[in-house]
């Protein structure tokens, strides 16, 4: 008779489960991208390539004032001097910046006053993406600004917001209608020459969202933007600017998808947040750009600069991101903690599979007294992907009593993927307290065994373990997004080990 302990061992480590989980990993790796279709909609584009004339053309098409054009041209000149960053742990073919179309917009676009005037095909597209603009119009839920290729096509709930004095519109509109605010804040957090991709974005950005919450106003609903790349050979360069004036509070969500194509497409966005005294900004992202097929063909290059400035005392900026898409991700949402007692937070789940590569993390720069920051990063690697956390915590000499706590956990599923952690800690003040913890492991056999012994299938068991692993981050997402993120995660793990 077989010893019971041997039988247990067989169950825990033996061939059958491993084989099964291998099959599941393979099945999951084969799963196709749900948002891979394109919309046949007539688009208005400009020639490929980048030079000063193209920038003039973009600016002209958008009917921008002279100062904006000057700003773009200055950024373009800075960009020409910039060198593409090479330090990230990602391998890719350098994009040919002259082969990209820097502007594409759905045609037939007179001034829209109402959603009913939006091209029905476009609305259908957004329905398909699960953004019911029509419904949103009626239900007081989330105010949505949808960006299709390069331009913003519809913004909902504007009236309700306007009553409170909140400005939520596309960037182009803001440039026209609120030039004083745009001039004051644009580039104040991410200067045009900040880095290679920020400079490129500053030169060619086509649209994006603009949010201004006036003094003491608490935004009554979550604001949301949905980004969609549709046309071939285009890059998407949106620019988002969120300003919370003294005592204001706002929660902002963004989501993104793109069709399947064999070529790589570039997405280089810039997001700037400004929080004045006592203001709070929560910024959540669920990123699901097309990630390329299982052999790593195609997919979006996601090179994004996101930064928030806690300008006033007791201000607070919180970044939450769920990253499941993109062939290459290069993204470090950061906080400049300038005001005394200001707080920065970063919660992130990054899942990579197939041949995806992600190098993502955050920067917390403590400048003011009693500033605090928390970093929770969870990375999950599957297939042949590479997933890195890279984060900087810097305590400047004047930042008395600054506190930081960092936790990075990595989960490896399958043995062809990689998980890496590259934290940087620069402390220049002796009252600083900086703690960093990291761990890397696979899903514990014990946990799986426990679940299975209670009749839960291996697939569900893994899903449970992974969801539990990410819970700390999901807890910080607004309700709707938490559901979406959880769903995205289970889709990624569907028919697999979690």
């Amino acid at each position, binding site marked *: 008779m077989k010893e019971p302990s041997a039988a247990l061992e067989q169950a825990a480590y033996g061939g059958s489960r491993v084989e099964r989980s291998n099959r599941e990993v393979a099945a999951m790796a084969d799963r196709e991208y749900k948002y891979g279709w394109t919309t046949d909609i007539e688009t208005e584009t400009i020639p490929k390539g980048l030079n000063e004339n193209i920038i003039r053309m973009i600016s002209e098409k958008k009917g921008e004032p002279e100062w904006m054009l000057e700003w773009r041209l200055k950024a373009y000149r800075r960009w020409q001097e910039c060198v593409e960053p090479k*330090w990230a742990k990602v391998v890719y073919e350098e994009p040919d910046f002259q082969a990209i179309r820097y502007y594409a917009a759905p045609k037939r676009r007179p001034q829209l006053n109402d959603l009913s005037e939006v091209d029905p095909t476009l609305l259908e597209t957004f329905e398909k993406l699960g953004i019911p603009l029509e419904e949103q119009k009626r239900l007081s839920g989330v105010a949505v600004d949808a960006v299709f290729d390069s331009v913003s096509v519809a913004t909902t709930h504007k009236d309700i917001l306007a009553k409170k004095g909140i400005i939520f519109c596309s960037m182009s509109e803001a440039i026209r209608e609120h030039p004083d605010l745009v001039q004051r804040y644009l580039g104040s957090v991410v200067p045009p020459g900040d880095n290679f991709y920020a400079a490129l974005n500053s030169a060619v950005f086509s649209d994006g969202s603009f949010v201004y919450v006036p003094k003491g106003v608490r935004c009554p609903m979550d604001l949301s933007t949905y980004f969609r790349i549709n046309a071939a050979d285009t890059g998407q360069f949106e620019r988002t600017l969120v300003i919370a004036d003294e005592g204001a509070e706002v929660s902002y969500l963004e989501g993104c998808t793109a069709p399947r194509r064999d070529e790589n497409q570039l997405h280089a966005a810039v997001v700037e947040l400004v929080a004045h005294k006592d203001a709070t900004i929560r910024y959540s992202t669920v990123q699901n750009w097309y990630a390329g097929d299982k052999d790593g063909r195609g997919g979006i290059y996601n090179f994004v600069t996101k930064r928030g400035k806690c300008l006033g005392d007791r201000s607070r900026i919180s970044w939450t991101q769920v990253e499941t898409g993109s062939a290459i991700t290069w993204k470090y949402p950061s906080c400049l903690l300038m005001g005394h007692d200001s707080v920065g937070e970063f919660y992130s789940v990054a899942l990579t599979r197939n041949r995806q590569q992600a190098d993502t993390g955050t920067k917390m720069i403590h400048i003011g007294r009693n500033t605090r920051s928390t970093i929770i990063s969870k990375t999950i690697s599957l297939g042949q992907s590479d997933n890195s956390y890279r984060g900087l915590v810097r*305590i400047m*000499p004047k930042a008395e009593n600054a506190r930081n706590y960092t936790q990075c956990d*990595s989960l*490896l*599923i*399958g*043995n*062809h*993927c*990689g*998980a*890496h*952690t*590259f*934290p*940087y*800690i*620069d*402390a*220049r*003040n*002796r*009252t*600083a*307290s*900086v*703690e*960093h*913890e*990291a*761990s*890397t*492991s*696979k899903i514990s056999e014990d946990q799986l065994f426990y679940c299975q012994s209670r009749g839960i299938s291996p697939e569900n068991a893994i899903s449970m373990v992974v969801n539990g692993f990410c819970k700390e981050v999901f807890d910080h997402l607004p309700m709707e997004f938490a559901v979406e993120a959880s769903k995205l995660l289970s889709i990624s793990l569907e028919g697999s080990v979690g």
Partner: protein
Amino acid sequence: MMPETKTAPKQHYLADLAGVPMNGRPAWLNALRADATARFQQAEYPHVRMEAWRHTNIAPIVNTPYASAIAPTPHGLTRNAVGDKLFGGDWIELVFVDGWFAPDLSRLSAMVPDMYAGSLHEVLGSPDAALAEPHLGKVLRGENAFTALNAAFLRDGALLHVPANMVLQTPVHLLFLSTGRRERLAAHIRNLLILGRHSQASVTVTYAALSGDADYLNNVAEEIVLGENAHLDYCKIVNEGASGNHLAVTECLHARDSRCRAFLATVGGRIVRNEHRTRLEGQGAGCDVGGLYLNDGQRLIDNTLHILHAQPQCDSRIHCRGILNDESRAVYLGKVHVLRAAQKTDSNQLNSTMLLSDKAIIDAKPQLEIYADDVKCTHGATVGAPPPELVFYFRSRGMDEATARAMLTRGFAEEAIGDVKPEAVRDRIRRHILEKYGAKRLG
């Protein structure tokens, strides 16, 4: 703005290299040197735009035209004069002055038959050169312009060979003294430690300055080869002079089941970089790297620790502590790299730094790069001052603040050295801690 290191001159080194005689040396050695010279000519000097040197600005070293010590000069020292740097007792002690072996200061009487401890330069000129051939220049992979330069000169240093199955009871001390009698002298020191299978040894390497304020450079490369099941206790104490610089790369290659317990103590020097690389290339091998850096003034100490897990079931542990005062600066980089084959890896690292001044800077980079899924890897880093609660506790028991702080600081440092062996080495490090953080010093 810092001076550009990319275009810094190399001629002074190349001119000195041309003066090194080639005759009387085996052909493989001349080939190795020529090869390294070519690599040096091509290599850029390390600069802060390189990721591995991002926080370590060695422009002051690169831009100083050091003259290389290509031949020994009479040192005129006696054993008594350097007595406080020696351990005495039954130790095997090899003393080097400005990079060259000084037999009259050394003590080799405790040597046992079959083992070899002596000058690398001498061995390479003798038929015993075959001892070094399979390993010399072959272990070191982490190369930069300075290690290439070290191999190009390949003058003197220590060679230790412990044959298979020998348990060396007597500890070995390699003492490198810098006299500072010649301004701007560069010593290119090369050490090779070979432990055969099932052997055991304990080696302490000390770098110390004899006098004052001279500006010099110790460009050190060390190669350690551990045979199957070999055990090594390795301790390095860097106590260079106030203007002395130390750039070192140590690489330790592990065969199956071998273990190395290493400890790096840095107490003196203007710019010190200890790059300690471990390659666990045999199943079941393990290493334990400890470190303590005590820094003050405007000095810079960089500890760069790499551990490569290439085979399954290896374990590694890093525990590095530092105390920074005044305007000093320290860099800590701990990188654990786990290859796909290295399943069942168990690794943890911890770096803790205490800042005693608002102008001191620590850059800590504990990194993990992992490609195997069945591993247990953790790392942690902390930075902070002595907690006020603890200071309060001491004060409430009638101790003044200076004493309280000094005791807490010493306690913090002592925790790092608990495992250091042999005892005499631990006592010596403890003496350095006391010298720096006695109550009066911290006020």
